[in-house]
C-alpha cells in the first residue's frame, strides 16, 4: 500500500515537469508529435527505473557518511558525499550506454523505436534530478527507490504526451505571431502546471 501511495504521489503531486521543471529542454524540443514524444517518455521511464535503484545502492554503500563501515569498521568516519555528482552522472552515462547495447542485441524493434533518444537521455536533467531527490529523501529500501523512479518516469511520460497532443491541435489555431512555437508552449506548460497543483497536499 505504501508503494502505491508513493507511486501516485510521484506521478501526480511531485510531477517532474510541473512541480520541479526537470527535463524541460527535451520536453520542449521533442514534443511536436505524440508518437515521438511517447517514445522519448518510454525511454526516460525505462532509464529512471534502472538508474534510481542503482544510485540508491551506491549512495547507501559508498557515499553517505559512515557508509564504508561494511568494508572495514575503521572507515566508519569517512564521508564521501562530496563525490555524489560526479559518481551519479558517471553511473547514469554508463547505464545508458549499457542499456543501449542490451536493447540493440535483444530487442531490435524497441531499439529502432527508441533509437536516437537513448544517448540523449544521459544529459536529461530529469534523470540526474530524480537520483538527487532520491538521495535527499532518504528512502528506507531499494524497492521504494525503484517505485519512485517508475512514478517519476510515468509522470514525465504523461506530461510530454499531453503537451504534444495539445501542440498538434495548436497548429490549426490562430496565435499572435510572436508567441508561435516556443512562447505558446511555455504558457501552456504553465497553465498545465497550475492545473496539476490541484493535486498538491493530497494525502493517500
Amino acid at each position, binding site marked *: 500500500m505504501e508503494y502505491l501511495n508513493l507511486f501516485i504521489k510521484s506521478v501526480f503531486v511531485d510531477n517532474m515537469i*510541473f512541480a520541479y521543471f526537470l527535463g524541460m529542454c527535451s520536453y520542449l524540443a521533442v514534443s511536436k508529435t505524440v508518437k515521438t514524444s511517447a517514445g522519448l517518455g518510454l525511454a526516460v521511464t525505462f532509464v529512471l527505473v534502472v538508474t534510481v535503484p542503482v544510485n540508491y545502492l551506491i549512495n547507501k554503500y559508498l557515499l553517505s557518511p559512515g557508509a564504508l563501515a561494511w568494508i572495514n569498521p575503521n572507515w566508519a568516519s569517512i564521508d564521501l558525499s562530496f563525490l555524489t555528482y560526479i559518481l551519479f*552522472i*558517471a553511473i547514469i*552515462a554508463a547505464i545508458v550506454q549499457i542499456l543501449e547495447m542490451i536493447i540493440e542485441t535483444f530487442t531490435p524493434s524497441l531499439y529502432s523505436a527508441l533509437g536516437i533518444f537513448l544517448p540523449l537521455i*544521459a544529459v536529461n536533467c530529469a*534523470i540526474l*534530478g530524480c537520483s538527487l531527490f532520491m538521495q*535527499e529523501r532518504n528512502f528506507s529500501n531499494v524497492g521504494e527507490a525503484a517505485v519512485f523512479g517508475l512514478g517519476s518516469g510515468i509522470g514525465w511520460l504523461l506530461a510530454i504526451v499531453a503537451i504534444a497532443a495539445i501542440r498538434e491541435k495548436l497548429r490549426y489555431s490562430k496565435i499572435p505571431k510572436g508567441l508561435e512555437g516556443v512562447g505558446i508552449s*511555455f504558457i501552456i506548460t504553465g497553465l498545465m502546471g497550475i492545473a496539476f497543483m490541484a493535486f498538491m497536499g493530497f494525502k493517500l
Partner: protein
Amino acid sequence: MNVKKLLIEPLRKTNPVTVLVLGICSCLAVTAKLKPALVMGASVTIVTAFSNLIISLLRKGIPSRIRIIVQLVVVATFVILIDQFLKAFAYDVSKQLSVYVGLIITNCIIMGRLEAFALSHGPGESFLDGLGNGLGYSLILIIVAFFRELLGSGTLLGYQVIPQSFYEAGYQNNGLMILPPMALIVVGIIIWIQRTRHPEMQENDKK
C-alpha cells in the same frame, strides 16, 4: 577575435534561454526570489566559462566517441567546487537551491556550448563565449526573478519595496507569482515581447 560580439550577442540575439531554449529546467525553479537567482546565474556563468576553457584546451586529445563522458566529468568537477564553496560561505542560499546546484551538470547550455563552440575554437574565444552565454542566462534569470519577487512578495533581495501604505489601502501580494508555474508564463511573455520586437526571430509552426 571579436570580443564584443562573443560577449554581447548571447545577451540578445542568441540568448540561450529565450532564443535557443536551453537550460530552462533550473532557470525556472530558482526564480521565486532574486537572491538565489543571482547566485545561480553566477554559478552557471563560472561553470560555463571555465569548462569551455578546459574542454577547448583538451579538444585535440579527446577521442570523439567518449567526449560526452569527458565533458560531463569536467563539468561535474566544477560543479562540485561551486557546491562546496556555497555550502561553506552561503549555506542558506545553498539550502534554497538544493538539488538545482547539482543539476548545473545537466544544464543544456553548458553541454550545448561545449559541443557547438569549445570543440572547434581556441581557449580564449571559448572562455569568452562561455562567459557571454552564462551572462545571457543570468540576465533572463534576473528579469524573471525581479518580477516574481516584486509582485509575489513585494520585496527585492529581501527588502520591502512596496510601501506599507499600499497594503493599508488594500493592495495584496499576488500569491500566484510565487508558485512555480508562473515562471513559465513570465518566460513565455518575455519571449513574446522579444519576438515582437525582432520579427526575424519568429518561427512558423504551420508550414
